[in-house]
């Protein structure tokens, strides 16, 4: 069996080939992988292009005095707000909202500090320190080339995706909604005056990858099969707010094979704010920037504690002065992103997972080294059945006791890792989650 490379340009870019949320007024990129008698090798798919930052509408490059920064650990992934995979009939196969938030949790957990120099650095423009990322990417007067895998359940899967409308999903359309510059960039200081009209621009975009060409006999077999079933992973995004000392959340996920859930927290006033980082993953903060320490976390299913039959009480419950992140919280968060026992490389460390006030007297979250703050919560169900746990008609419950005593609402982005099934029968496609 042989493979063929493909290179596809987006359907909807303007004549100059440039795409920008703020400048071109065209915040969507649509790319269609055609309906052909082949399989798509998802692991080979890359979004390629050039990324450039400007500090003003006159398209001047940021300089040493421009306080323009972006999230150093995820680099160019910052610009993707949502990622959707659908077939040519419009049936959604996977949709990840707040994609850049998802990447800001996923990449530091699954990649090491050296990976941020090397593989993520070269392909996604990340760096493990905010200043060197600012100088080498944001302030780079030339466009930065990037070539990124579209991290997602579908694309990270190992099964080839049948593209044919006769015996497969019927083409694959990838829709990328870009993030506003105000949620990509933030200030290195306390003011955004030096880049108030700053924006980013993508150019020379293309999607590349490989397709698997079936042998004639195999193709005939595929064309005559009546039904086929594909299992794949998905990431589903849920958004909630926290603004009390006892956050009690209940959600109907509507998913039947949930493998894990992980979440990250950001003060809502940081989102789309040029002074603060809307993609930062922090422990909750009070309005005076003191950290609102998490005292306990309880995960529930159908109103009962599950999978932990106990409260996860943190070190801060007994010792409020404790500034180290609670190991149970950190471990469960990491394990929800990638099974802990299989985690060969990670960038989560005591240097960047800190329960720290966001003040000059302490260490502001913007000054965390090794890729910035990596706080998060999570729970893995994969250990239990290897096939996920059903939350189809059963609510997920989450309770957190924390020291959020002031009126400072926080966004909780929950990412649910679920196993989906596609049933293809006589050219009809049914997605079961």
């Amino acid at each position, binding site marked *: 069996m042989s493979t063929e490379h493909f290179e596809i340009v987006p359907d909807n870019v303007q004549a100059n080939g440039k795409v920008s949320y703020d400048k071109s007024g065209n915040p969507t990129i649509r790319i269609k992988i055609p309906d052909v008698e082949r399989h798509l090798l998802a692991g080979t798919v890359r979004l390629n292009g050039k990324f450039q930052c400007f500090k003003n509408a006159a398209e001047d490059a940021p300089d040493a005095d421009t306080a323009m920064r972006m999230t150093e650990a995820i680099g160019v992934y910052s610009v993707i707000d949502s990622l959707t995979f659908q077939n040519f009939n419009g049936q959604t196969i996977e949709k990840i909202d707040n994609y850049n938030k998802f990447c800001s949790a996923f990449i530091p957990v699954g990649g090491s500090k050296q990976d941020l120099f090397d593989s993520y650095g070269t392909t996604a423009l990340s760096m493990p320190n905010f200043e060197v990322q600012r100088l080498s990417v944001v302030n780079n007067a030339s466009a930065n*080339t990037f070539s990124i895998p579209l991290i997602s359940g579908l694309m990270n899967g190992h099964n080839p995706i049948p593209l044919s409308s006769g015996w497969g999903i019927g083409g694959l359309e990838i829709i990328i909604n870009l993030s506003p510059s105000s949620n990509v960039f933030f200030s290195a200081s306390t003011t955004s005056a030096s880049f108030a009209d700053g924006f980013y621009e993508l150019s020379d975009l293309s999607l590349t990858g490989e397709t698997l060409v079936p042998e004639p006999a195999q193709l005939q077999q595929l064309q005559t099969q009546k039904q086929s079933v594909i299992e794949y992973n998905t990431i589903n995004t849920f958004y909630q707010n926290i603004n009390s000392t006892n956050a009690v959340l209940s959600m109907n996920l509507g998913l039947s094979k949930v493998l894990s859930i992980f979440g990250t927290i950001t003060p809502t006033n940081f989102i789309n704010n040029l002074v603060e980082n809307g993609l930062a993953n922090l422990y909750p903060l009070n309005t005076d920037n003191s950290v609102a320490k998490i005292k306990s976390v309880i995960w529930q299913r159908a109103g009962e504690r599950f999978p932990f039959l106990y409260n996860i009480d943190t070190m801060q419950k007994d010792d409020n002065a404790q500034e180290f992140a609670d190991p149970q919280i950190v471990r469960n968060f990491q394990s929800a992103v990638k099974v802990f026992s299989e985690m060969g490389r990670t960038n989560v460390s005591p240097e960047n997972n800190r329960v720290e006030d966001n003040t000059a007297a302490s260490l502001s979250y913007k000054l965390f080294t090794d890729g910035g703050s990596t706080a998060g919560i999570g729970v893995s169900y994969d250990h239990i059945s290897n096939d996920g746990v059903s939350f189809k008609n059963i609510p997920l419950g989450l309770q957190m006791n924390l020291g959020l005593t002031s009126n400072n609402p926080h966004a909780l982005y929950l990412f649910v890792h679920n196993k989906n099934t596609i049933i293809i029968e006589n050219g009809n496609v049914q997605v079961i989650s």
Partner: protein
Amino acid sequence: MSEIVETQEMETTIQGDVKPTQSNVPDLVKIGSIPSNLQIDYDTTVYEPVTKSQSFLRFQIDNKGILHSNSKLTISMTGVTESAFFPFGVGVNSLIERATLKCGGKTLSEIDDWNHYMAYRSMFIAAENNKERESITTARLMSYQLEYNNIKSASTTEIPNTKAQAIAVDTGLYPSVGASNTETLMPDYLLADNAPVFQISLADLFPFLKMNQIPLYMMRDPLFVELTLVGANSKNRLSIQAGETTGQTYNVDLNNVHMIIDHIYYPPEQMEAFAAANQQITLSYHDYNLSKQSLVPSQAKNNIRNVGGAGRIVTKVIHGISNNANDGETQALNNFQAEYPNTGNNTVELNVRYNNSFIYPIDVKNTARLYNLITTAEGMTPFVPRDSYNDEGNSITSNLIYGRQQNAQFKGAMFYQAHRLHKGERVSGKGIDLYTKYDELSGGNYTQRVWLEYLKIATITNGVLDVYNG
């Protein structure tokens, strides 16, 4: 007298079918196929070279047991008086120009410009492993760390902060801040004037050994490892600190070169059974064929050339362009580099054509994608920062590494490319054409090296080795 009847043991499957029992003789030469409950014995033999000079080493390996693929060559330098060290990227591998494995007059494996090939191969060692393991074992040292700013408070006391303006090579020693410059030094054990002994794995010399072990006890002729060394005056053996005298002769300590071979033994009846059951053993493996061409920058701007491979099953094309400057020793990586165009438009375009079609529908220009294509070809990512690969971002510090500016040493110096040939078919008689456009390299003479990974088959029939292309 009763007649001896040969019987065959039978078994019943769960479907109720009766069939002969599968052979319980494991394949001893296939790594991973041997059950772990066997009693294994090792015999470590230290071989001295049977022929030795500053340009050539030959070792003869005894026909006993099974050759352990991770056996080691140990080697060191002698009489070095300058502050010199093995090149950062390739380490002690810089010494070997060609590695050949022979038996009975047949060449099992041979890689030309093996030291340059290892410069490419060394990119796949995780930076953490380079720093913590390879710097001790092979003198390879490519690992980066953040170079934090030291800021001065009102009282002029230097206080650290978390801002890092650049990245710097991590030798294990943090840069020392001097009055006029900041310099990263190297640990003493890496300096050749201290005559450290380093090792090279047999499986690195002959990559097919990573997947196969040679049953020496079943072979009639002895095995020879032949190593052609880089010339002692070539300026390519070691790199030197700034200010040291160039053009010195650097000698290998020929009294301290050893091939330390582990011979593996299984219980005798097991080995005899294996030999009896395998009168003919077939090993299929990959070898690497070099094609190289001298180039000047104007030629490199649009270079189409046939790199061979005709009639062979080629699975991978690996290539890079290195500077021939005769001052290799003044570079931290020596000449074991693959240059990114450092002038003109600073652009690259390339494609590969074989069997009447190009691999890529459009010539590849995006250098980050080229990095990804290496990942696809090798199944793992190269551990090389962006600035060092495609000369973007200026993130490598201008501070010194052993007397030389780091950015001048490492920027755009590891721009290797690799392509997996995807058609799963034999290359036609026309061979493989490589299209490269480097716009453009700075002045000088360059060499483009292309290695083709191709299929080879070796058979051992009644102890006699035969080798042919797959």
